[in-house]
């Protein structure tokens, strides 16, 4: 395809502001007279809040307002389950849960006020893990769970806030057909998204009773609606604006600080800013759930998978958060990207007395894939099959069914696997020497939801693109702008983007789920079709032709050897009409699936699925267990690469983040308290820990995406843990089944092997 703008590695429009430091992030945002808001948090994991005394704090210098549960509307809010309150009322459910908030003139005054608030607790029996929480006699975190409003499809029971299930075929028959049955259990740790900029919001009320919130949220419209519930006012009275965002990765989907800022600003009558600390991020944010996964897989002697029974438990923390949905998505991932006729897959989201977990880049993906793809290698080893061959024998191909019966198309998985394997030198594997190569593969969704854009042509020929989506650092809006520029035959720098203001931009489902470039790009196409029609109608009489004879070429409408520039036409339109203005909307069409195969399922099919394979070569120090990732390859089916450079950037970043989950990151809870609530002890990888990542862009165009594009942002975060685990097993002969795979785990496993071989 010959293109002007699209498919080219053009520089993103938000780069100059970011690299020169002039872009205003939410954390930088400031208003005259602005107060500092801080949150008073529970020190107990599970307790009745017997008494709360803010008297002394209220009298301290600089304090301009304190709110407790008694001062805010008695509202329960939440996504799938409305089980959360802004401030704890009579019970606290995790260490770090907000109980009160203070607005003061300085940070020091606010902190002094927090220190002067006294909370008295009566301890309740805490529950710290999903095994205890799901035991028959477990204490209930939410004794009133039956009274909560929730998505009707959910299956809830006590501490379980959803159990989603996929059943296909007959697993018992499938296991009967199998020659070998493999059962394994895996565990993964709670990890944080690690965005550079902490969550931040500034709120200000005006005399008309409208509150404006400047927030680094990924979902301004979601925040608008949630604030409407919490503040008990109309959504139209709430304006959410997103300035710059220093990363989100799913951690900034849900209301986190915005409600506190808005409530404090109302109380104090002045603008209030709430900015979290690293400690608050690691104890009271929305991290990725720790999980336990159990897999039972039946295979024939020649390596055909006959059945899979999989169960995953998500430790979702004190509130449901994203848990019910994530538990649903997980069942799709547990199937693996394989043809398996008989499936019984369950995802459980379970309450515990920990911080409320949320969404993190490909929610459920890394945990589920780690288990599935680790077990694939274990099985291949047991059957004496090459792990690549075993996968190629079972992977889904064009026209196959997904686990819930959706028909798959544009399936680039085989190409991904073969290319990743070739690039890592799969056929050049030498056993021993403490080096090993591993593979993993998977598929992921391009989240649906609707997007709208307004587009106008300015009198200088430039284009204004107005979108409700936020640019969270992925360059997705640059991709969408490239679509618009291509369709209107202008250059990327001719497009000016205005984004994410709930008062002035059209609705967008938000920067989540690998959907922004995909959905906003399609909305841009729709707007461009409308604008082109307007341009031709306007130009045709002046060019002396019928509109059908017109074409767009290099910023001009051309026909019959004559032309008018977009700038001329915009001026003409302003003089004779209302200007060249269009809107475009897009919503992903529903993906048909077999409704009989799912129970209590919030996400029954992957839309425009992407396919990917990762390969790694690692070396392991046999004495210390230290792991070095020597080489890393990703082959990802992106459908169509709108801007190859930024897709490669997404892949490299996703791998770096995935290696963190694989090897070093873990929020460590001990007795309900986080032991490592700082960035010294919570170990994200540094540049020295991440190898050069080789990216291979595979392009099997999707039917729905703009120019065939598929979602690209989340997938590269899915496979790193499994890939590295498989490479470590190849290098050492020991299989680590829990994340993170630390040097200590490897060294101890190697010592066990040595001890066992000495005994025998």
């Amino acid at each position, binding site marked *: 395809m010959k293109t002007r703008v699209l498919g080219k590695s053009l520089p993103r429009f938000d780069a100059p502001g970011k690299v020169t430091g002039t872009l205003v992030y939410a954390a930088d945002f400031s208003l005259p007279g602005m107060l500092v808001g801080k949150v008073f948090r529970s020190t107990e994991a599970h307790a009745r809040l017997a008494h709360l005394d803010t008297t002394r704090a209220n009298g301290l210098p600089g304090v301009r307002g304190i709110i407790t549960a008694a001062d805010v509307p008695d509202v329960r809010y939440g996504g799938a389950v409305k089980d959360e309150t802004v401030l704890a009322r009579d019970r606290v459910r995790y260490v770090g849960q907000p109980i009160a908030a203070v607005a003061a003139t300085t940070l020091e005054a606010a902190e002094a006020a927090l220190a002067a608030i006294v909370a008295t607790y009566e301890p309740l029996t805490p529950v710290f893990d999903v095994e205890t929480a799901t035991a028959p006699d477990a204490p209930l975190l939410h004794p009133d769970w039956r009274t909560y409003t929730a998505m009707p499809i959910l299956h809830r029971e006590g501490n379980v806030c959803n159990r989603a299930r996929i059943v296909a075929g007959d697993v018992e028959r499938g296991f009967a057909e199998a020659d070998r049955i493999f059962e394994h259990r895996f565990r993964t740790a709670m990890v944080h998204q690690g965005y550079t900029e902490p969550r931040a919001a500034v709120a200000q009320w005006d005399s008309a009773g409208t509150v404006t919130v400047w927030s680094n949220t990924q979902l301004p419209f979601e925040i608008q609606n949630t604030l409407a519930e919490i503040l008990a006012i109309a959504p139209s009275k709430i304006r959410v604006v997103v300035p710059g965002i220093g990363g989100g990765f799913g951690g900034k989907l849900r209301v986190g600080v915005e409600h506190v800022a808005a409530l404090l600003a109302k109380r104090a009558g002045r603008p209030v800013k709430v900015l979290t600390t690293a400690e608050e991020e690691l104890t009271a944010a929305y991290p990725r759930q720790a999980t336990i996964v159990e897999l039972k897989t039946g295979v024939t002697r020649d390596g055909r998978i006959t059945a899979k029974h999989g169960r995953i438990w998500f430790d979702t923390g004190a509130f449901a958060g994203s848990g019910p949905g994530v538990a649903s998505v997980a069942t799709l991932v547990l199937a693996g990207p394989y043809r398996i006729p008989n499936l019984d897959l369950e995802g459980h989201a379970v309450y515990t007395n920990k911080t409320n977990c949320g969404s993190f880049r490909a929610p459920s993906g890394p945990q589920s894939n780690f288990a599935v793809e680790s077990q694939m290698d274990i099985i291949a080893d047991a059957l004496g099959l090459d792990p690549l061959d075993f996968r190629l024998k079972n992977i889904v191909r064009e026209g196959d069914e997904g686990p819930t019966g959706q028909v798959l198309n544009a399936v680039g998985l085989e190409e991904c696997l073969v290319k990743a394997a070739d690039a890592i030198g799969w056929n050049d594997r030498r056993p021993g020497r403490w080096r090993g190569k591993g593979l993993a593969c998977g598929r992921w969704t391009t989240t649906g939801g609707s997007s709208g854009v307004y587009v106008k042509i300015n009198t200088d020929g430039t284009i204004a693109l107005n979108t409700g989506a936020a640019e969270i650092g992925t360059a997705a809006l640059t991709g969408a702008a490239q679509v618009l520029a291509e369709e209107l035959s202008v250059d990327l720098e001719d497009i000016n983007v205005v984004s994410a203001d709930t008062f002035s931009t059209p609705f967008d489902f938000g920067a989540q789920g690998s959907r922004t470039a995909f959905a906003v790009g399609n909305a841009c196409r729709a707007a461009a079709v409308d604008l082109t029609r307007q341009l031709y109608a306007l130009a045709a009489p002046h060019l002396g032709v019928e509109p059908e004879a017109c074409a767009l070429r290099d910023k001009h409408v051309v026909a019959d050897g004559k032309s008018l520039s977009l700038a001329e036409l915009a001026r003409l339109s302003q003089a004779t009409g209302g200007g060249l203005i269009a809107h475009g909307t897009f919503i992903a069409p529903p993906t048909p699936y077999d409704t009989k195969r799912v129970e209590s399922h919030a996400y029954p099919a992957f839309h425009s699925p992407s396919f990917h394979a990762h390969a790694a070569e690692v070396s392991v120090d046999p004495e*210390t267990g230290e792991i070095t990732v020597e080489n890393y390859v990703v082959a990802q089916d992106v459908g169509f690469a709108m801007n190859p450079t930024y897709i490669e950037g997404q892949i490299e970043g996703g791998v770096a983040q995935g290696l963190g989950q694989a090897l070093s990151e873990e929020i460590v809870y001990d007795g309900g308290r986080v032991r490592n609530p700082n960035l010294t002890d919570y170990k994200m*990888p*540094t540049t020295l820990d991440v190898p050069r990542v080789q990216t291979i862009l595979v392009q099997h165009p999707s039917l729905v995406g703009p120019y065939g594009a598929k979602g690209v942002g989340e997938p590269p975060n899915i496979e790193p843990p499994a890939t590295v685990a498989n490479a470590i097993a190849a290098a050492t002969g020991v299989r680590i089944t829990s994340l993170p795979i630390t040097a200590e785990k490897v060294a101890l496993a190697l010592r066990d092997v040595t001890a066992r071989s000495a005994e025998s």
Partner: protein
Amino acid sequence: MSFDFHEPASIAEAVALAARFGTEARFLAGGTDLLVQIRRKRVAPRHVVSLHRVPGLDTIDANGEIRLGALVTHRALERAPAFQGALRALVEGARVVGGHQIRNVGTVGGNIVNASPAADVVPVLLVLDAAVTCVGPNGAREMKLDEFLLGPGETALRPDELLTSIRFPAPALRSATGFLKAGRRRAMEISVVCVAVWLSLDGDDRCAGVRISLGAVGPRALRSCDRPVESSPRTVSRSRTSAHRQPTGGFSWKHSFRARSGQR
């Protein structure tokens, strides 16, 4: 937090301020530990005495005996030409402290006085048999670093004393040093364990002496071995099997001994 900030222009002036304010004062060198402790409310000094205007504290003197001013930064240790050979463990220890920003301002004197059991440069100084000079109102005294370090955050430094310099003998011919660190990641990392080794060979390429110090495995860096030994060089080579994963690595022991010991 609030404190009075003092900028003395001489050691005598600095020590006089410390004597005047006693335990309410803290010296500020790089600040990479002190400011974190203040922010975390572990200490709340009423007076902070900056050492940056005191001349001569940031020099490395390597003509003969080695003398490091207390304000020599980790970056300066990394880059010092004098430490690229037999004293290379100083470079290896200094270059894995924190990140670039920390190393640009964090000082060797501060690293010692902070007395973290996991301080990376301290085990190296221990195997080099370093001594520290502390200046108080009654003048200077010198003691072995091994005697100076008492436990986590504890040293023999008196409240009115300033650690001004560290010294150790010039490396003997046919001696070498090495440093290794294990942690969960390769930068911005506090050691899970670190080890420094000094050894020397006799004229027959036999190991004549070895000193080993371990960090992060006890209340303070420990000297675990300090004696002349009788062994063949091959015994020594085992100690480097982990070296390949060090960011500083990429060498083999056999190849490096000559380079490290300054032999050509």
